[in-house]
């Protein structure tokens, strides 16, 4: 085996890379896992308003130890804080914001994304023993943009960017951009278009770890 000239991004680095692309003023919902880490990676001088399904706009940083408010959790059931300007509302209003296309962005994790932007992130099979969907389908169809943050391949090395999803779909043709530990890839009408590759990894090496054709695209 040849020596690798590259190191995949860790979870926080993926989140940091996502945060870089979020402009001031966007309303953003973050899914569980790597997406949740995005909030802490937005520069302090850039106001981004984070939304939680359970009726919160304006999520602030995690509470300091000993200063937890047990009434204030996000959709991942983690303790959070509220920024100045934040607000509370009920679940039907919260999902009106989601379904009504008021969120500029939702960042989700995924099992698989297809070359046409189909998202599979809620069930591992159609006979899942105890499935759970939560707000994933609402977010996938409702946000103005869906970005995915995930590992490029499975633990077994199988690609997660595929021609068509094997897992049950969350929503069709919804993903616009994918941030992995190896690359940033746009979903275009022509398929997966590579925006960035991590240092030391070649296009062909990335292609080899991807289950559908990649299109070369200059970052410019």
């Amino acid at each position, binding site marked *: 085996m040849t020596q690798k000239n590259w190191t995949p991004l860790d979870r926080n680095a993926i989140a940091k890379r996502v945060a870089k692309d979020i402009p*001031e003023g966007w309303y953003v919902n973050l899914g569980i896992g790597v997406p949740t880490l995005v909030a802490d990676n937005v520069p302090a001088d850039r106001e981004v308003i984070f939304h939680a399904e359970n009726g919160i*706009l304006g999520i602030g940083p995690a509470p300091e130890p000993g200063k937890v408010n047990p009434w204030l959790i996000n959709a991942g059931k983690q303790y959070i804080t509220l920024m100045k300007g934040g*607000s*509370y509302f009920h679940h039907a209003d919260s999902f*009106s914001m989601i379904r009504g296309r008021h969120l500029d962005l939702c960042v989700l994790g995924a099992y698989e994304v297809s070359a046409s932007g189909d998202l599979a992130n809620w069930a591992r099979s159609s006979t899942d023993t105890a499935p759970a969907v939560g707000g994933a389908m609402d977010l996938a169809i*409702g946000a103005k943009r869906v970005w995915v943050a995930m590992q490029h391949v499975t633990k077994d090395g199988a690609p997660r960017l595929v021609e068509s999803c094997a897992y049950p779909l969350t929503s069709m043709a919804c993903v616009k951009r994918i941030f992995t530990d190896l690359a940033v890839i746009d979903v275009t009408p022509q398929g997966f278009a590579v925006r960035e590759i991590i240092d030391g990894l070649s296009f062909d090496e990335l292609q080899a770890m991807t289950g559908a054709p990649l299109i070369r695209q200059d970052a410019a």
Partner: protein
Amino acid sequence: MIDKFSPDIAEALDGIPDAATILLGGFGAVGQANLLIEGVLETGVRNLTIVANNAGYGKVGLARLLKEGRVRKLICSYPRIVGSTIFEELYSSGKLELELVPQGTLAERMRAAGAGIPAFFTPTGANTLLSQGKEMRDYNGLPHVLEQALYGDVALVEAWEADRWGNLTYRDAGRNFNPVCAMAAKLTIAQTQHVRELGALNPEHIVTPGIFVDRVVHIPCGDPVG
């Protein structure tokens, strides 16, 4: 720093095109964004579709837009109120198209637009003149009408308080259609009586979160008139 405040009415209204659909908050004389509505007059746009509960109240706001011939179509529940002579003249002379909608259906159609619900069944108006030509279906043993979401290009609302994120509160009966209009339009513009520092509004008491509001202009116009 997010700052949704516009320095004046003209800037707040910038970009409204001819033939836009404009949703107006307010019920009777209370909670109408009269100065924004009159600002629309000054932008010169024409051929508007206006969605509002009443066809203007008194001689201000919508009544002026109607009088100046800027409105092609009115979607409305109760156009005929005391003093709405401008509406009656235009309507009876065929210069104004009217879509009459039951008040609750009007509110729900806008709420549906804001909530991403393109259509819903309602019992209101089933088997009446106002359901003619619409799809019907029985639920719970009663006829229901399929009604469509009512989307706005622009919403003009009046708030009591606002902060720079666009969070809004209302006063008393001034709430009415305002929060519903705010959520249903692509571009929501609020005139507010009072400006508050970010964080001064209690997060439990904000009625329209800023996600539904694009621009705010400070117009301390005082008590309702009309």
